[in-house]
C-alpha cells in the first residue's frame, strides 16, 4: 500500500490552452478517482481534516469514493461545504488538507482537491439537487425569519447556505449584475468556469436562499434600512477589493489597468469576446504584469490568451523563491510561455504622445538582509535601469479595504487599515446583530478562509436570533 504514485490529472496541453479560455485540468474520471481514493490510508487520526478551514470529513468522503458511493461522498462534503465544485478547484490544498496528509513524506500526498472536485462534478452530471426539507425558523407572523447578507462572494454564499440549512430565509444582496463576487469577476474562466458558480448559486436557491443583484448595501439600503425592513441580522461579506497602485509616474496612462479592472473586464464583462459583448479591453502586443501573487498569475495567463498578444512578462522585485502565488499557478504560467523578469522593480511607466503606454522603465534589484516577514529585502542596483517595451501594464499589487460600504455605517468599528473589527470566533462586529467575515474583516485571503468565516458567522447569527427572540427549539 501507499507505494502507488498519485494519479495524474489530465489537462489541456499548454500550446492548446493558450488559444482558449476553457478549463485547464479535465479532472478525474470515475476509474481514476476510485484509484486515487483507494491510495488513502484511512488514518485512525485523520489530520487532513484539521487542515481544512471548514473541517470537511475528508477521510469519509474519500472512503466513499473508493467504494464507488459517489452520492454518499458528495453528501458528506456538502455537510460542511456548500461550494465543493469551487473549492475543489481553487483551494490551496497544498497549504491546508494536503499539507497535513501523512503521505507528504513519500512525496505522493492524496489529491484531496481533485477528489473533491470529482465528487462535485459527478453530482452535477448524475443527480438533480435534492434539497432536504428543513424545519423553518418562523417569526410571529408565520414567515421565515430573514437574514440579510451583503455580498455574494464565498463568505456570503456560505453564510447563506448555512442559514438556509438551519431554516432561515437568507437574502443575499449583490452590487454587481451577477452573483458570485470574486468567483465571477476575479477568478478566470480557465481556473473556475462560471457555469460552476451558477450551479452552486442555483443549489443555494433550491435550499431556500434568495439572491438580489444590483443592490449595494450601504447605498441602496443602509444597515438601518435593512433592520427596518424586518431583517433580524446582517452579515457583511463584501470583500476587500480596492486596488493598490505603485505611486510611480505614468500610472494614469491609457493602457494601465489595475489587475482588478483587467480581470473584471474579461471575467465579468467578457471583453475577450468583444465585439459579441460590448465591453472592450486594449491589450496590444506586449503585456507587463507587476507582482507575483495568484492574481498576477491570473492576469498574466489571461493576457497570454488574448488575441494579438505575443509577449507577457511578470515583473517582480524579489526572486522566484519569494513569489507568493501557488506553485501550481507559477508552473502553469511557465508552461504557457510567460516571461519572468525577477529581481526587477518598475520605476516609471512610459507613454507616447497620445498618452498611451509604450513601455516601462525598470531597475534591477538584488536581495539584501531578511526583513520582518523573513523575506530577503530587495535593494536597487545603482545604474541598472532598463526599459521593458509594453503596450499594457497591469499592477497586481494586492488590495486595500474598500471603505464604500463601511464608512457610512454608524457605530461600526474599523481597524486602522479600514477592515471591520470582528470577534473571530463569532464574526460579531461592534453593532449587535451585524456580523462580518471574509476579506473585509481579515484583508485579502483565500476563498476557503472566507467560507470558513461565513460558516462561523451563520452559527453565531442563529444563536443570536434564537436568543434575542427567545425562541425555543
Amino acid at each position, binding site marked *: 500500500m501507499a507505494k502507488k504514485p498519485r494519479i495524474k490529472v489530465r489537462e489541456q496541453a499548454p500550446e492548446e490552452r493558450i488559444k482558449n479560455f476553457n478549463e485547464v485540468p479535465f479532472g478525474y474520471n470515475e476509474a481514476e478517482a476510485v484509484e486515487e481514493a483507494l491510495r488513502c490510508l484511512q488514518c485512525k487520526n485523520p489530520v487532513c481534516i484539521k487542515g481544512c478551514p471548514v473541517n470537511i470529513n475528508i477521510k469519509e468522503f474519500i472512503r466513499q469514493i473508493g467504494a464507488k458511493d459517489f452520492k454518499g461522498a458528495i453528501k458528506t462534503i456538502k455537510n460542511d461545504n456548500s461550494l465543493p465544485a469551487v473549492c475543489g478547484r481553487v483551494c490551496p490544498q497544498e497549504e491546508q488538507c494536503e499539507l497535513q496528509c501523512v503521505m507528504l513524506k513519500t512525496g505522493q500526498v492524496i489529491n484531496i482537491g481533485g477528489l473533491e472536485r470529482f465528487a462535485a462534478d459527478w453530482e452535477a452530471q448524475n443527480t438533480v439537487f435534492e434539497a432536504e426539507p428543513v424545519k423553518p425558523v418562523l417569526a410571529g407572523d408565520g414567515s421565515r425569519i430573514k437574514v440579510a447578507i451583503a455580498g455574494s462572494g464565498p463568505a456570503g454564499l456560505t453564510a447563506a447556505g448555512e442559514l438556509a440549512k438551519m431554516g432561515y430565509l437568507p437574502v443575499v444582496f449583490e*452590487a454587481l449584475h451577477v452573483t458570485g463576487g470574486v468567483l465571477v469577476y476575479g477568478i478566470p474562466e480557465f481556473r473556475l468556469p462560471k457555469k460552476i458558480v451558477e450551479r452552486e448559486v442555483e443549489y443555494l436557491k433550491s435550499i431556500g436562499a434568495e439572491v438580489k443583484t444590483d443592490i449595494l448595501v450601504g*447605498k*441602496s439600503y443602509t444597515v438601518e434600512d435593512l433592520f427596518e425592513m424586518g431583517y433580524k441580522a446582517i452579515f457583511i461579506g463584501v470583500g476587500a*477589493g*480596492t486596488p493598490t*497602485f505603485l505611486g510611480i509616474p505614468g500610472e494614469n496612462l491609457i493602457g494601465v489597468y489595475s489587475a482588478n479592472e483587467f480581470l*473584471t473586464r474579461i471575467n465579468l*464583462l467578457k471583453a475577450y469576446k468583444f465585439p459579441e459583448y460590448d465591453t*472592450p479591453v486594449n491589450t496590444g502586443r506586449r503585456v507587463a504584469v507587476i507582482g507575483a501573487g495568484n492574481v498576477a498569475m491570473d492576469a498574466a495567463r489571461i493576457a497570454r490568451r488574448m488575441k494579438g498578444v505575443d509577449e507577457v512578462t511578470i515583473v517582480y522585485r524579489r526572486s522566484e523563491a519569494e513569489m507568493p502565488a501557488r506553485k501550481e499557478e507559477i508552473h502553469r504560467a511557465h508552461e504557457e510561455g510567460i516571461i519572468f523578469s525577477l529581481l526587477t522593480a518598475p520605476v516609471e511607466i512610459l507613454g507616447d504622445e497620445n*498618452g498611451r503606454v509604450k513601455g516601462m522603465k525598470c531597475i534591477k534589484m538584488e536581495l539584501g538582509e531578511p526583513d520582518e516577514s523573513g523575506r530577503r529585502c530587495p535593494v536597487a542596483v545603482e545604474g541598472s535601469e532598463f526599459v521593458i517595451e509594453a503596450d499594457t501594464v497591469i499592477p497586481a499589487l494586492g488590495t486595500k479595504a474598500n471603505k464604500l460600504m463601511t464608512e457610512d455605517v454608524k457605530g461600526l468599528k474599523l481597524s486602522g487599515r479600514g477592515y471591520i473589527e470582528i470577534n473571530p470566533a463569532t464574526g460579531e462586529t461592534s453593532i449587535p446583530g451585524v456580523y462580518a467575515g471574509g476579506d473585509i474583516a481579515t484583508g485579502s485571503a483565500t476563498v476557503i478562509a472566507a467560507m470558513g468565516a461565513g460558516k462561523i458567522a451563520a452559527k453565531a447569527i442563529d444563536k443570536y436570533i434564537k436568543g434575542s427572540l427567545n425562541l425555543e427549539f
Partner: protein
Amino acid sequence: MYKITLKKELTKDIKLFGVEAPHITHNAKAGNFIVVMPDEKGERIPLTIYDWDREKGIVYMVFQEVGLSTVKLGRLNEGGSIYSISGPFGRHFHVENYGTAAVIGGGVGVPAVFPIARALKQAGNKVNSIIGFRQKDMIILGEEMKSASDSLVTATNDGSYGVKGFVTDALKQMIESGDRPDIVVAVGPVIMMKAVSDLTKNYGIKTIVSLNALMMDATGMCGGCRVNIGGTTKFSCVDGPDFDGHLVDFDGLMSRLTSFKEHETEAMHKCRLDTEEKNG
C-alpha cells in the same frame, strides 16, 4: 429586469427614461449616479440621476446616444425593460445654504445639474443658472431648469437661441455685473468644466464639478475611473463624482476618456450591421 415606464425623446439623440427601481429611489439624493446595462452583453454605463419619485419607486435618467451602448439603450421602449440598474452610487452633492449659487449645465450635463439646482434652491440659496447648448434644436430641460432656479440664462454657441456664446461668457458677465456667486456648480463636457474652473479660479470662487470618468463596477473595485485631484489619485466613483474644479487634472481626465475610441468605432460598426440585418 426593470420596467421602463416612460420614454421621451428630448431631442433626436437625447432620451429620457423613467424606470421602476425602488432600490435606487429609496436613498437617492442630488448628485448620485446609477449604472445601467441595456442587456446582459452590454457595457455598464454610468448615468447621473436626473430625478426620482420615491413613492412610486421610479428613477428618471437622461442620456445621449453617443456610442454603441447608449444607442442600444435608446432602442429600448416604454413598457419594455432594462437588464440591470444599480446604485445610487457616489457621494451625493453636499447641499447647504451658500448664499448665491451659480449652477451651470452644458448639453447632457443639464439633467445632471438639475437636481442640484433644485436642492440648492430648497436649501435657501439664490440660484442663478446658466445652461449652454450648441444650437437651438439641442436645448433640453429649459422649463425644468427655470423652475429650479431664481434666474436662468440659456446660451447657444451659434446664437440661435438665448445669448450667443459659451456658458463661460454668461458666467463672466454674471460675476462682473455684481451678482457674484458664493459657489459655482458646473456639469457638462470636460472642456466646459475646465473652462469654467479656469475662469472662477481667477475670481477665487469655489467651484464644484461632476466628473464623467470611464467606469465599470462603480464600487471602488477597479480603479478605472481614477483621476488626479490636486496631485493625489482619487476614484471618481467612490470619492466623487463631485470634486473641487480648481484641483482637477482635466487634461489627464480627457486623455483617459479616449481609452477605447477605436473599439467604440468597431462596436458601432457591428451595431449598424445588426440594424441593417434586422431592417433588411
